């Protein structure tokens, strides 16, 4: 059974009625079971922790989340940086700045330019890289990505990919070239919304995208990071779907490290305005619910979030931060003038500044947590 079967089952589920039926005593019961991380929380517990009733329990949820995270990960935040190597894209995602319909000069870095970018990032101490492209296989074919991985392997201890969904055999090629991790967001689990915001292009295929993490895990990646883009669908339902997707992957691929991200739309960036804003409180509730549901889950927080907010949520279950990020192609070393970015970086601090903030919070910034072998 793939996750598609499970995802289909929930398409007709009445989340709103169920969430509203949960009472404070249900939340307390789930928290009592989840305390200490000794008993495994079930799917209905995740619904309970994401419910409106649980909004009054954020402090006890945070206490448990902190304890579980500390025990399983230590007082540690791993650091990485994103590297955009191409912004060509044939998709029509209505919410994205790289949308095929948006007219701006597109860029694809040469290997020499990738080398310069990689060196600039490595000079800041970063050892884990996340490589990103738009979805334009004609512009960034497998051979290009493979060559890019080989350049990256000279500078980094871990190479994660956030590119377009591929077949398992293509992923195997990139795995052999040095990539060890895969990031892919479903964007929105609600199929009706998915269809609406992905009207055309290869991404219109919901099922192919949904099963991408499974193809990646089967191809040999040691870590898979998934997520939903908050702003498109009902946030509580989306948080639930992402959570059970992570649980599904954990069960199906026990040797793979599973992580979740919480990217959220803030305002219209030339595209559509988000239908559902995820407020800070909802962000925190989601993170805490996920942590209690899956004590060993990696939780990634990017520089989309503000410096002030990132300083606080270190204590609430996060395990990995990006730092010093540029989200425009060639932004680290190749281009000196501003180009189009996929999203606005809100935390603009340098890697050293983020590392210092982590230390000041009583945590250790970890730059290297993998070895390409």
């Amino acid at each position, binding site marked *: 059974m793939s996750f598609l079967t499970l995802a289909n089952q929930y398409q007709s589920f009445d989340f709103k009625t169920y969430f509203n039926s949960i009472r404070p005593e249900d939340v307390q019961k789930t928290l009592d079971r989840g305390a200490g991380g000794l008993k495994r929380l079930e799917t209905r517990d995740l619904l309970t922790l994401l419910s409106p009733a649980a909004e009054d329990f954020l402090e006890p949820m945070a206490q448990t989340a902190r304890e579980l995270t500390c*025990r399983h990960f230590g007082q540690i935040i791993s650091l990485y940086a994103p590297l955009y190597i191409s912004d060509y894209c044939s998709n029509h995602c209505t919410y994205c700045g790289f949308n095929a319909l948006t007219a701006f000069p597109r860029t694809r870095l040469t290997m020499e330019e990738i080398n310069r970018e990689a060196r600039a990032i490595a000079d800041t101490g970063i050892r884990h890289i996340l490589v990103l492209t738009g979805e334009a296989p004609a512009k960034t074919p497998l051979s290009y990505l493979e060559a890019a991985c080989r350049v990256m392997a000279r500078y980094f201890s871990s190479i994660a990919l956030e590119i377009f969904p591929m077949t398992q055999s293509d992923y195997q090629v990139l795995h052999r070239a040095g990539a060890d991790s895969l990031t892919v967001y479903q964007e929105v689990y609600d199929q009706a919304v998915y269809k609406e915001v992905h009207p055309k292009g290869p991404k219109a295929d919901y099922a192919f995208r949904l099963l991408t993490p499974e193809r990646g895990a089967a191809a040999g990646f*040691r870590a898979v990071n998934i997520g939903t883009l908050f702003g498109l669908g009902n946030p509580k339902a989306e948080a639930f779907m992402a959570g059970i997707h992570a649980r599904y992957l*954990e069960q199906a691929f026990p040797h793979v490290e599973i992580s979740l991200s919480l990217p959220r739309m803030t305002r219209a960036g030339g595209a559509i305005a988000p239908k559902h804003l995820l407020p800070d409180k909802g962000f925190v509730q989601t993170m805490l619910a996920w942590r209690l549901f899956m004590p060993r889950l990696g939780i990634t927080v990017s520089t989309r979030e503000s410096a002030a907010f990132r300083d606080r949520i270190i204590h609430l279950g996060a395990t990995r931060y990006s730092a010093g990020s540029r989200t425009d192609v060639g932004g680290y070393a190749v281009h000196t003038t501003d180009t189009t970015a996929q999203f606005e970086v809100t935390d603009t601090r340098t890697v050293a500044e983020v590392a210092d903030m982590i230390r000041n919070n009583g945590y250790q910034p970890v730059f290297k947590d993998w070895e390409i072998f």
Partner: protein
Amino acid sequence: MEDRLALGDRYFSSRLLTGTGKFASNSLIGPMLAASGSQIITVALRRVDPKAPPQDNILSHIPDTVTLLPNTSGARTAKEAVRIAHIAREAGCGDFIKIEVITDMQYLLPDNHETLKATEILAKEGFIVLPYVMPDITISRRLYDAGAAAVMPLGSPIGSNLGLEMKPMIQRIIETSKLPVIVDAGIGRPSQAAEAMEMGADAVLVNTAIATARDTAIAGRAFAMAVTAGRMAYHAGMAGHSNRARASSPLTGFLRE
């Protein structure tokens, strides 16, 4: 005669092994080692970065007098564990290697089969091999045949602080093993470390409980004292215990009437 822990051709007076993961800062490691007297410390090769500035390079926080026990954290197969061991040796981390082959990320439980394969290869290559395993009598015998220097059964899952959940299995390994038995993982309190030593374990490895304590140096010292006390109790040949008060011979007393 001095009571020392023998691993390969090396001898140690401390029976507390410690770890480097999970500390809020690497600068806490040195004081913890000094306070605990631990002479062996494990370090995940995946975290070692010789290119990093000293404060971020774990190795620069470990004094030369302490023996490095690099581990193969991150390995999913015997082949990967062997590769990591080779990298560790090339990086100047010595001949000790703790084999961790983990294929269950949810509970971080070791894969005994792959661990045994890696042990066979690395022991032949001259490594002092300390394999981390699920407590299993058969695997413990086979590790001896494969040339391991010790067997490291887990007390309970890594980071769980549950103590000796595997107690009856570990007991059986201690009774039969020709290798030193080092209880690794899950020991959350000094009393649990003492319990393992009272049972006859040769040593314990404690990381999470020390690294995540509010005062890591004092926690290290507390564990060291517990290990010493447990070892002394073991040597003292303490009497067993019972849950009930017992008349001296309730069943056969009549014979003396």
